[in-house]
């Protein structure tokens, strides 16, 4: 079996499945947020803050940022593997991407949990 050390799960089929599951979750989350903003044009801070301070929204948002971490890792891994042929450079860039995404994930938890 061909495995790849830098891909998310090291297994193409598993990466593929993770990418699809997280895609559906993020899609539903984004459509909910966009729909909420479109149907409430005169929203104020109190309503906006109330939405994000509900426990269910905090949980949903943290799962969303976690899904984005996994989804973006698979996606950016695929693109960098396709276009960056120099192995050393590719590993360095993929490591930086992982650091970047992890930072955003932790920052996201901080934002959502503290709201």
């Amino acid at each position, binding site marked *: 079996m061909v495995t790849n050390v830098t891909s998310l799960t090291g297994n193409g089929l598993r990466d593929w499945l993770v990418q699809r599951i997280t895609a559906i979750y993020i*899609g539903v989350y984004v459509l909910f947020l966009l729909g909420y903003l479109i149907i409430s044009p005169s929203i104020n*801070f109190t309503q906006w*803050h109330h939405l994000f301070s509900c426990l269910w929204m905090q949980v949903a948002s943290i799962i969303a940022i976690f899904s984005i971490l996994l989804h973006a890792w698979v996606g950016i891994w695929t693109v960098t593997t396709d276009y960056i042929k120099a192995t050393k450079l590719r590993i360095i860039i993929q490591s930086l991407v992982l650091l970047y995404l992890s930072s955003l994930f932790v920052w996201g938890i901080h934002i959502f949990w503290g709201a």
Partner: protein
Amino acid sequence: MNKNRPVNLELGTLKFPPMAIASILHRISGIVIFLLLPLMLYFLEQSLISKQNYQALLGVLAMPLIKLVIWGFLAATIYHLFAGIRHIIMDFGVGETVEAGRMSSIIVIVAAVVAILLLGVWIW
């Protein structure tokens, strides 16, 4: 290697069928979202910290350049979402022929353009 072999890198002579365009736009939109995530998270953070930060953010979001960036982010998100839905439908074995793929690519691109224009109207 034969140095006289035919090399065809004239961009004007390369053909890009709708499927190729839909595919590369899916990648580009994904990278745009990836790169703009910190800015969007920053805006979200400012909107939730306090009423003062929220009001200050409204002022920032009213700036034309910032509006353009937000529109760009939303455009990339909508396109990525539509192209992703097409992908998942095809994963279920629906529309996998060349003709269906061509048709669904065109539908995704046209639907995304319409939605992106509507989002532009909504923002401005």
